[in-house]
C-alpha cells in the first residue's frame, strides 16, 4: 500500500499537499483500495468554502458512499473536472491524477495538525 511521502494525512484517509500557496486534496491509496471501484464523485464548486474536518463531498464506489472531509479550511479554487467522466482514476492514481480539489487555505496553521506520512503509515499498518 503506497504512503506518499510528499503529503500529510487525515485519520479519515484524505491527503493534503502544498502547491505554492494552495493546498491540493485527495484520498489515499488505503482509501481507494478499501472503497474498491469508484463510480462517482460529488465535489464542491469553485468558490465554495470548506471547513477543516467538515464534509466537502462524497465518493461513491460499487459498494458504498463515503463522505470526504476537508483537511484544511479555505476557498475552493480548482476542482478536478476529469473525475466526472473518469472517477476510476482515483483508484489507479490516488496521489496524482486522482486529486480532487485545490483550496486557498484560510488558516495555514492547520497544516501542522495533519498526520505525517510516518504517523499515517503507523496508524494503518
Amino acid at each position, binding site marked *: 500500500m503506497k504512503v506518499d511521502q510528499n503529503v500529510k494525512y487525515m485519520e479519515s484517509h484524505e491527503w493534503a499537499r502544498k502547491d505554492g500557496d494552495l493546498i491540493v486534496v485527495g484520498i489515499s491509496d488505503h482509501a481507494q483500495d478499501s472503497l*474498491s*471501484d469508484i*463510480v*462517482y464523485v*460529488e465535489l464542491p464548486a469553485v468558490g465554495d468554502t470548506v471547513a477543516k474536518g467538515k464534509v466537502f463531498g*462524497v465518493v*461513491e464506489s*460499487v*459498494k458504498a*458512499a463515503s463522505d470526504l472531509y476537508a483537511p484544511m479550511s479555505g476557498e475552493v479554487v480548482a476542482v478536478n473536472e476529469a473525475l466526472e467522466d473518469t472517477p476510476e482514476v482515483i483508484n489507479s492514481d490516488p496521489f496524482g491524477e486522482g486529486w480532487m480539489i485545490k483550496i486557498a487555505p484560510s488558516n495555514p496553521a492547520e497544516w501542522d495538525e495533519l498526520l505525517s506520512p510516518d504517523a499515517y503509515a503507523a496508524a494503518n499498518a
Partner: protein
Amino acid sequence: MSEEMLKRTNLYEWHVAHGGRMVPFAGWEMPVQYPTGPTEEHHTTRNAAGLFDIDHMAQFSVSGADAEAYLNHVSTWDTTLMQINDAHYALLCYDDGTIVDDIYLYRLPNRWFVALNASNREKDLKWMQSHTDGFDVTVTDVSDETYMMALQGPKAIEILQKVTDVSMASVPRFTVAEGDVAGIPTLISRTGYTGEDGVELFFDATRAVEMWETLLKVGEPLGLKPVGLAARDSLRFEPSFPLYGHEISADVTPIEARLGWALKLNKPFIGRDAILKVKLEGPKKLLVGFEMVDKGVPREHYPVAVNGEIVGEVVTGIFAPTVGKFAGHAYVPAKYAKVGTKIQIEIRGKLKEAVIIRRPFYRPAYK
C-alpha cells in the same frame, strides 16, 4: 450481526490466498471481489469468461413416485411439460401469492433436483417438507455434499469442452447433462445468472479445489478469471434477473415482480388463486427499471418520488458497467409504471431526476 460463525466453502482458503475480499453473505463468508475489482470482473465475464464460487446456494433432491405431481403443486411452473434433462425457472409461493423463493427445477433421469437461494435454505426446506402430505415424495437437503460453481461468458463453453467428453453442442440452453468434467462426475446445467452463455456445475463437494483450479488453468489462455459476488450482482441486474430480498420477497406476488412468464396459471398450485386475483384486479404496485438523468448512484431503499412526492423505493441500484449507466429497479404505484415516466430518486437528502426505461437493460446473449 449474528453471533454464529459464518460458514465457509471449500474454496475459502483459495480465495484468501488469491486476494479475495471476504464478506458475510447469507451466513457465509464469500468473496465479494478479487484484486481484479468488480468492474473488470464484470467486463471479463461479458467479454471472455468468469468462474464463480456459488457453493453457498442450496440444493434439494426430490424423489418418489409423486415427485412430479408434488413439484407441480408447490411451484408455479408446469412440471408435466418438462422432459428428462430439462431445466426451468420457477417460483414457490405462499397461499396469498407472495413469494417464498425463486428456484431452478431440473428433471433428471431418476429424480428431480432443485437449486434455491442460500438465504432461504432453511425456510424453503421447512416450507417444502410441510407440503408433502398426500404425495409419495421425499425432499432432501443435499447442499452440504453438493458443490455449485458457475462458468459464464462467451468463452465458457469452449473452456468447458476442453475438460469434458460431453458434447456441449448437444446440451442446449435450459437443459442438463451428466458426465465427467475434469475427471469429476458432474451435473452440467446450461443455465446461469449473468445473461451470458455458460454453465452451472454440480458435483461432489470434496473435489471443489480440483475443479476450480483445473478450470482456471484451462481457461486462463482464453481470459477466464475468478469473479466475486459484487460482479455477480451487476451481471444479473443488467438482464433484469431478480434477487430475493430485492425484486422478489414475501411482500410481492409474481405479478408485481413482472414474473408472469414464470407462471403456468392454467394448473393449480399453491398461491395460484391469490395470484389470479391480483392479475385480474390489477396490481397496486409494479417493478420498474430506471436510469438516472442527474448523475448519482441509486441504492437499495432510497425513496422514489413522482413530482416530488415519495411513492416507492429502490430495490437494486448500481452503476451498470456494460450499459454504462447509473440504473436501478424500484417499486412504484402501478399508475406511474409506464416507460418514460419521470421520477426522482432521493440520494442523501437530495431529489435527483431519473426516468423509467424498458427492461432488460441488457439482452441475454444466448437468446
